[in-house]
């Protein structure tokens, strides 16, 4: 009796293991139609034509995220207008990293949500595996939507003729500086990089820490400086506008890294190494550093009394980078991950609303986000509240040099590698050349 129990246990074990692995292998990759269709049917509770189509939409724009306010408003307004036909099931994932991780798991399992935000390399994965639906068809049918996005934005997300994602914002980024500190040091925003460095010396002499830098997370503020330095020469500019560079070992990169090395060693706060965004932002807002490279979403913080002292917003100025350059890029935006035609159409409709004139206005007013279309202009109330934002638009218009941010150009594992590499550079454990080589090696590891 006992032996047979054990035997049946073992055979049951094997059966379960085999079935499980069969299921596992079966749902890998792209052959997911039947299974996905099942889940779709399971989602739409009743199979009647009157029930609204359900869209799954995970988002990280919640909590204290700068974009949380406009996300909420867009969703509310969409529900008002289209709630009866389309029900958006929101999944709140309050961390960008967690969002990326989860989406990768879903992609690997063939269970993509209907609406996906493609930044941080998610779009690459979807494009490579052909898991998303291009927008070409929708663009051809809807000239109005197409014009609201604009050709430039569409082109930035087109590969091999297919429009993989619809952008939702234009990023115009210069740098903010503390006008009071600049006055006391007797300087004005630099026009060349050499002048930028001597400005830093003068700030130091006047008793101020020049730069709010960070090497933690994605080394955002530091990388903006690096990109601006590299992008100010001709060859460098080409580099900073090319997707997925294979080699970082160019003279411009090395020179740029050397300059960053000096900045990290001499011109920044003591907690820059290992600092996360919160540290750098607070250092600037609390007047502990004179310059921070960052985008317009930060403007709201300057008048937010929990983040900055009263009247701080009047002290902040914005400037182009030396060489009259600025970052002018289009965000990756939204992609369609649905499987059924019905869901795809619904997803397209949802994305259309978010990127329409109305959607763009909401993002502008509530999130300080640069709209795609010129037809979207800030209201007068907005202009009064955030004069700095108007200056940002001027910066974008008057700059003659444009480049993209590193995060949009490199593979995600490179974005993850800066935090380990910058300390090596700052502590002289590696030279700029060696760091450039490590970047190249890391990039090669990406699959």
């Amino acid at each position: 009796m006992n032996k047979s129990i054990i035997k049946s246990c073992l055979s049951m074990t094997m059966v379960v293991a085999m079935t499980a692995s069969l299921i596992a292998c079966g749902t890998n990759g792209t052959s997911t139609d039947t299974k996905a269709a099942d889940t779709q049917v399971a989602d739409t509770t009743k199979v009647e034509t009157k029930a609204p189509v359900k869209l799954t939409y995970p988002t990280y724009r919640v909590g204290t995220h700068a974009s949380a306010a406009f996300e909420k408003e867009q969703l509310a307004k969409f529900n008002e207008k289209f709630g009866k036909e389309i029900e958006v099931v929101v999944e709140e994932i309050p961390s960008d990293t967690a969002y990326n991780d989860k989406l990768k798991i879903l992609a690997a399992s063939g269970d993509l949500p209907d609406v996906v935000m493609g930044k941080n390399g998610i779009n690459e994965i979807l494009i490579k595996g052909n898991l998303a639906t291009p927008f070409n068809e929708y663009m051809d049918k809807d000239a109005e939507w197409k014009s609201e996005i604009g050709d430039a934005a569409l082109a930035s997300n087109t590969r091999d003729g297919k429009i993989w994602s619809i952008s939702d914002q234009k990023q115009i980024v210069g740098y903010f500086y503390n006008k009071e500190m600049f006055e006391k040091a007797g300087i004005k925003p630099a026009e060349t990089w050499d002048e930028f460095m001597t400005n830093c010396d003068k700030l130091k002499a006047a008793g101020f820490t020049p730069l709010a830098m960070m090497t933690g997370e994605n080394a955002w503020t530091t990388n903006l400086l690096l990109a601006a330095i590299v992008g100010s020469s001709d060859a460098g500019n080409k580099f900073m506008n090319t997707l997925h560079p294979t080699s970082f070992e160019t003279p411009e990169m090395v020179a740029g890294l050397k300059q960053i090395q000096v900045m990290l060693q001499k011109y920044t706060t003591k907690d820059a190494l290992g600092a996360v965004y919160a540290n750098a932002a607070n250092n600037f807002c609390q007047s502990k550093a004179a310059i921070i490279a960052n985008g317009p979403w930060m403007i709201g913080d300057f008048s937010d009394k929990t983040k900055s002292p009263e009247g701080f917003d009047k002290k902040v100025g914005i400037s182009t980078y030396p060489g009259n350059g600025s970052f002018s890029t289009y965000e990756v935006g939204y992609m369609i991950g649905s499987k059924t035609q019905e869901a795809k159409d619904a997803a397209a409709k949802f994305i259309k609303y978010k990127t329409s004139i109305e959607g763009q206005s909401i993002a502008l007013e509530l999130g300080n986000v640069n709209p795609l279309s010129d037809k979207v202009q800030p209201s007068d109330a907005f202009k009064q509240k955030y004069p700095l934002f108007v200056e940002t638009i001027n910066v974008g218009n008057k700059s003659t040099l444009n480049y993209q941010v590193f995060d949009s150009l490199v593979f995600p594992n490179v974005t993850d590698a800066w935090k380990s590499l910058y300390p090596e550079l700052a502590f002289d454990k590696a030279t700029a050349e060696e760091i450039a080589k490590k970047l190249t090696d890391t990039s090669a590891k990406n699959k």
Partner: protein
Amino acid sequence: MSKNKGYISLFLLPTIVLFLIVYAVSLVVLVGTSFTEWSTGTKPIFIGIENYVKMFTDDSDFRRSLLNTGIWILLQSTIHVLIGVVFALILNMKQFYWKFARTVYMVPNIISGAAVGMLFLCILNPEFGAVNSIIRLFGVSDFSQNWFMDYGTSFLSVTMTWLPYAAIVSMLVLAEIAAISESLFESARIDGANEFQINLHIIIPMLRNIIGTCVILAGTSMLQKLDIIMMTTGGGPGNVTLNLPMYIYRTALMDNNFGYSNAIGVFLIIFGIALVMIYRGIFKIGKTNE
């Protein structure tokens, strides 16, 4: 005793089922795909032992993370367990403060790894962190040592963040001590033994099993821990504080290289099995205390 075998199987069954559901599929996928080239969104392609070869010949990050993991396993299973046992023995004397101390010591273990990481990140911040501020109070003005990012102190700082784990050891040891029959203590005291001798000759030998268990749990926990590292140094500076679990996470979810990361995972398992077997041999676990 053959009639017991039925019951034995019955009692084992739920655990076997649980194990299958939660782990079996993962194991199969893990081992299977370690021999393939597989990244997110593509199908696995069989490539034989290429992944394993690469691990040992071409990957300096792997070697460093293996070294770091090894060192931390050693530290965690010796020093931390030692601290935990000593703490438990002291608390066993049940002096007035013992309940308070026991609770307080467990506090860092009660809160999630993410929270602990954030706590340490804040107090060790070079500019405004509590540690540096206190040191500045003592007169060393302008002290702004960057604990987590400075090459000299980074490894040590991360090691310190695991110190609270010893509280779990204390808790387990205390539970086991409670099981030791009072009469043993009585007779020892009647014989004139003092506290120290009681500790040495009676309690510690009876703790052989649980100390061995703690060593295993502590050591193998180093094969899984990555939340604190992720929150504080991310493996940096360079790869100074990189350990194997962190490296696996990075390869899987940053490099998108699932095939390779699963190969490292298989290696980790084999490494862990060897470790557990060594520990079991040292402590002769599994034999009752007679």
